[in-house]
């Protein structure tokens, strides 16, 4: 029987000498979901992940992983892990290293060899399998590291800041592979503080700040619950002061977030998007994009984490 949730945290607390890294955190990660654990630096993401992996023990609370307590020794073979701090044995040959890491997760030597070969081929590293890790470029090492996390066909994939330090090509490779694995039924938990990544990938999220949960749930629900009407506005040319009059009217727009080429506007209660458009046009601005939307994850994150910070 397969449980509905791959990971369940109940009132988990972890203290280090002097400060509380995670405080009474509860969350449930649905099976087969792409789950984003979001939070600013130092929010407790890595500590939470380490507790799920039984690298750290919680001071309070319980953690259930794939239907077993987190300390269950059989879990290692069912979980794949890409740590934030990445590293490999530099002097080892690529294939030997992958086989070794798979063996530590309970895969037989022969099987590990075959699978490693397949993955190396898939990510275009076949001809490097006999080389030492230190002879590989950084991007190739990142691929090897990623292979090591999926080599044993894990049911749960845990990626801590997976996109940190990745070049765009590898980012894409990683994203494609993760999505494909998720489609195949693998549950993926990944942490990030870059909301654009989460926005594109996740179907569920949990935002934490200062070790506490701020909000969690399916992405669509989180957006709906955040409420408010939002408009994404892009102009051909942002000239100083041109549309300030419209944007500074608090009966119309309560908040403006500028992102380079566009801005996200939060509309006041009862304000109509149409009215905003009219006022902007009347000011003489050339509009290239005007879109009534749900709040972006970025905006939710800033709002929610900002609340906690105050």
């Amino acid at each position: 029987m397969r449980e509905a949730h791959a990971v369940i945290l109940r009132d988990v607390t972890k203290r280090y000498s002097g400060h509380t890294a995670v405080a009474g955190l509860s969350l449930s990660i649905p099976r087969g979901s792409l789950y984003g654990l979001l939070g600013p630096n130092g929010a407790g993401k890595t500590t939470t992940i380490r507790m799920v992996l039984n690298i750290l023990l919680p001071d309070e609370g319980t953690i259930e992983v794939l239907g077993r307590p987190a300390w269950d020794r059989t879990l290692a073979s069912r979980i794949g892990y890409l740590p934030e701090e990445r590293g490999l044995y530099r002097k080892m040959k690529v294939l030997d290293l992958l086989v070794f890491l798979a063996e530590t997760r309970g895969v037989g030597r022969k099987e590990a060899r075959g699978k490693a070969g397949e993955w190396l081929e898939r990510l275009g590293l076949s001809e490097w399998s006999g080389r030492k890790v230190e002879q590989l470029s950084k991007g190739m090492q990142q691929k090897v590291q990623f292979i090591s996390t999926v080599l044993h066909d894990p049911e749960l994939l845990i990626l801590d800041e997976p996109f940190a330090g990745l070049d765009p090509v590898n980012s894409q490779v990683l994203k494609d592979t993760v999505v494909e694995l998720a489609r195949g039924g693998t549950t993926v938990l990944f942490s990030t503080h870059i909301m654009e990544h989460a926005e594109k990938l996740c179907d569920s999220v949990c935002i934490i700040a200062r070790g506490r949960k701020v909000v969690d749930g399916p992405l669509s629900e989180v957006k709906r619950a955040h409420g408010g009407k939002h408009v994404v506005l892009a102009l051909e040319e942002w000239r100083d002061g041109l549309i300030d009059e419209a944007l500074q009217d608090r009966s119309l727009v309560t908040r403006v977030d500028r992102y380079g080429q566009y801005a996200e506007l939060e509309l006041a209660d009862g304000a109509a998007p149409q009215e905003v458009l009219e006022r902007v046009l009347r000011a003489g601005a050339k509009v290239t994009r005007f879109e009534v939307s749900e709040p972006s994850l970025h905006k939710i994150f800033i709002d929610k984490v900002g609340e906690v910070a105050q």
Partner: protein
Amino acid sequence: MSKVWVVVRREFMERVRSKWFIVSTVLGPVLMVAFIAVPIIMASRGTGERTVAVLDASSGGFGERLTEQLDQAPLLRASRVPVPVGRLEEAADSLAELVGFRALHGFVIVTDAAVEDGKLEYRGSNVTSIADMSLLRGLLEDAVFAERLSRAGVDPSVVRRARIPLEFTTLKITGARTTRASGAGSFMLAYVIWFLLYMGILLYGANVMGAVVDEKTSRIVELLVSSLRPFELLAGKILGVGSVGLLQFGIWVGFAMLALEQRDMIARLLGQPGLGAAGSFPEVPLSTAVVFLVYFLLGYFLYAAMFAAVGAMTGSEAEARQAANAVVMVLVLPSLLMIGILNDPAGSLAVALSLIPFTSPIATPVRWAAGEVPPDELVASLVLLLLGLWGVIWVAGRIYRIGILAYGKRPGIRELVRWVTAG
């Protein structure tokens, strides 16, 4: 258990295949051969002949006889420079000039005080050579001794017979049984055992530390502890490096035995037949080999665990080396007291050192080789060592478990205590 095996195999294979292993395994025997060969070569080439002068201001023909005796000694040329007592210093100055021109190594100043009061003086460029000086001293002593006897009216043939040197044999008594092992041989065996234990434990223990630091600095440890218990990782590492050590020792010991067996041939190859027998090595009894092996392994485990803990609590190779000095100091302690142990293998110092778990891995086998360790003391030593080992591994394992994931400032004593006592 199977995961420990996976770690052991990786540590073993990676090390055995590395350049470091190949170089050090080959270099070891090369040094051993050099140990045997260099003295032979040195003996054949010699350090060259020494030319000395006898500045003779004595009376009664002693100077002539002394010069003759010195000249007969191997590798020594002596010639006599007679001089009246009043002009001694003047003559010495001109001989010193000859020494300066390297025409002469030095000169002995002989006056009548030599025979009467035993006062002799040598001035030369080779006074720092212990070999030269002890040879010269021996010859001078013999000559003065003979001169005194003959002046007292003793027959010269009696004097010659009185000067036949001693042949002093020492044999070790183990229990109540006289063994064939000679005193010098036992000393040498104990010395070799000390050297192997000290070097082995230090070398491979530090190797474990290096491996721990390497995993920590390369950050792969985070990945490893997500699939292995820290203790499995630590145990696998220590056992893996240990088996490399045993293999390397095995190769070296095998090579050493071969070299000793074939030392005549090696000597012949070097063009010095006969000299090979000079470096004889005592036979190693099986019991000594067993004691050595058991203590080497237990001592290695003990120190490797400590080195691993040190590696885990530091953040870089350099920092670890520095922190490891404390561990090395404990290891060095029995070495500093080696002479004490060898002088009195049954004395209270030796007994104490062979009971303390941190010193017994080296002290007990050395005592065993040098003299006698009563069975009850051996058992007590082993029990204490095993208890100590258990304690050290427990503490080291806890430091390791937390240390490998802790980055930043090196923990202080209080922080370490918290690591050890934390659930």
